[in-house]
Each structure stands twice: as C-alpha cells, then as structure tokens.
C-alpha cells in the first residue's frame, strides 16, 4: 500500500508541478507545500490503517494460531534470515566482509556463552 500510494502521489505531483514555461514563485511554493501536506496525510492514513488492520489480523491469528512461542519465533527468524542475507550481499557480500562479519558472530557467541 505504501508503494502504491507513493507512486500515485508522485504521478499527481507531476501533473501539478509548475510548468517551466510560465512559473510564478507563489505557485512553486504552494504546489511544493501542498505536496508535502498530502504526503503527511498519506503517512498518517497508512499508519492508522496499518495499526487498525494489524490489530484486527492479530486478533484473528491469535484465536487459531497452532504453533507455540518458540516455533513462532523460529518461523519469523527464518523470514528475517533472508533479509539478513540480502543485507550482507548489499553491504558488499560475505567474501568482502567475512572478517568483520565472522568477528561479529564470534563476539555474539562469546557474549551469549559468558554473559
């Protein structure tokens, strides 16, 4: 929804943008501030829909969720692991960052063992 609405807003901004043929400073400011106000409204509405929709979905899921807490966490961590792998690649990949990455993992493992 965020992607769809931001694309729609950008298309609208393109239609409202002052034409370079005969611009007036007041119109440049008004259109720009209007676009920011619309984006703020978009953000507020999306947040409201997200919070209300999320609560509704969570209510439904909670009634029928068959997994225990540790399996649920496992499922979410598997999903998150994909993002972590993608992030490592976008940061330069394992080959380039292996020393710092392995150092971070080792630090966490030592911390988990002794702290």
């Amino acid at each position, binding site marked *: 929804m965020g992607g769809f609405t931001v694309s729609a807003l950008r298309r609208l901004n393109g239609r409202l943008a002052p034409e370079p043929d005969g611009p007036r400073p007041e119109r440049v400011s008004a259109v720009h501030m209007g676009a920011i106000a619309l984006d703020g409204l978009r953000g507020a509405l999306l947040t409201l829909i997200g919070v209300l929709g999320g609560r509704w979905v969570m209510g439904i899921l909670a009634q*029928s969720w068959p997994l225990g807490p540790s399996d649920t966490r496992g499922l979410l961590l598997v999903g998150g692991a994909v993002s972590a792998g993608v992030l490592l*690649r976008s940061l330069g990949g394992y080959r380039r960052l292996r020393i710092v*990455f392995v150092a971070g993992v080792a630090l966490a493992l030592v911390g988990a063992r002794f702290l």
Partner: protein
Amino acid sequence: MTIALSRRVLVSAFARSFLIQGSWNYKTMLGSGFAFAMLPALRVLFREDPSGMDAALRRHLEHFNAHPYLSGVALGAVLRMEADGEAPEDVRRFKTAVRGPLGGLGDALVWGAWLPAVSLAALTLLWLGVPAWVAVLLFLLVYNAGHVALRAWGFMTGLTGGRGVGRSLGAAALSLWTARVRSLAGLLLGLFCGMALAGRGGLAEAGPIWAALACAAFVGGNLVGHRLWRPAAVAVVAAVALLAAWGWAA
C-alpha cells in the same frame, strides 16, 4: 558581478533543502523542490529584474535529481554560481553534470551503509534487552546526527566550492567513508546474526530445524540478493496464513 547573499538567505535556502524531496515526481524529479529551495536567493539576486527572475525560476524548475541529503552540494554551488552572475547555460550544464555523481555517492553512503549500520545497532540494542523506546530514540538521534551533518557539510562545501565543488567532493573521499561504514555494518550484522543464533530467545531455543532453515535462508539471501526478498516475504505470509487456517480447522 558578485552579489553577496545574507546569512538569513543562506539559512533559509539550507532549511528549505530539508524539504527538497517534498514534491518529487516522475517528470522533473527534484526539479520543483530545487526551485523551491532556490527561491529566497533568487528573490534577492533578481530583485530588480523580473524577467531575469522568471528565467532563473524556469531553469531551476527543470529536471534535476540527486540523493536528497547530498542535493545541498548542488544547491550551495548553484547559489554561488547565480550570485557570481555566471551564464545560465553554465549553471544548467553544472546541474546536469553533478546529478549522477551526487545520486550515486549518496545512495551508496546513506541507503547502502549509514541507514543499515544504525538500524542494526538499534536492533542489537533491542535484542540485548534495552527498552524499545530507548533503542528507537537512539536510532533517531544517531541517524539524524549523521544526516544533518552530511547535509550541512554538503551545503557548505557547495557554497564555498561553487562550480569547482567536484575537487572538494573528491578530497572528502566519500567512497572511503562508505567502505568504512559498510565494514561497521558488516560487524553489527554479524553480531546480530550471532545473537539470533545463540542469544536469549534466539534460534538455539527454537530448535535445530529452525536454526538449519534460518542458516539456509541466510545463505540463500546472500547468494541471490534482492530478487529473493519478495518471494521470501510472500512465502512467510503464505506460511502464516496456512498455519492460521490449519489451526482454525483443527
């Protein structure tokens, strides 16, 4: 002829640069925002020349794009060029020349390094048991300290460098900073992954099957990259929906 721009005008232009992306569109991209940020200076520079003002506004409304945080480099340099009375065609050529490098450098430094590094630091704190509001507050403070510093540095660099700002950008070695921040993000990602594996509430508690699946998913993500993100998100949502339906039927 050079016209001196007052501190008030410069502060106003810099403040407006924070809103430069406010009317981003597919036609002129940052064009309208750039003209909006230029307005206070243009009003002073062309106070007694309405046709000059008209022409200046027209050329700054044209297509322009850059990373929003580094657009201040172009804004500062163009302010200087306009104040120095440089030829409109030179200003136009300068804007065309800098938009690619400013976009590439900014994307790599901010979206590709700074944002992931600070996000990972906040997530690590959260996993260590720091209250959520403290982690969020620290994220906002640290991220925006870098953000505002980069904008201020860019604007001042552009303003002092003018059309020769390329030399200042080269001397600043933004690519080197990007590599350093990426290394820091790599360390934090390793720390986060280690905690997800062995930390409290992590995969070690979820069981070996989940840990093996998570390791496979991590390796897959690292090998395939962004193309895997959408199918993985769909798979997780589908798994949640199927499990909920199964639980409902049972």
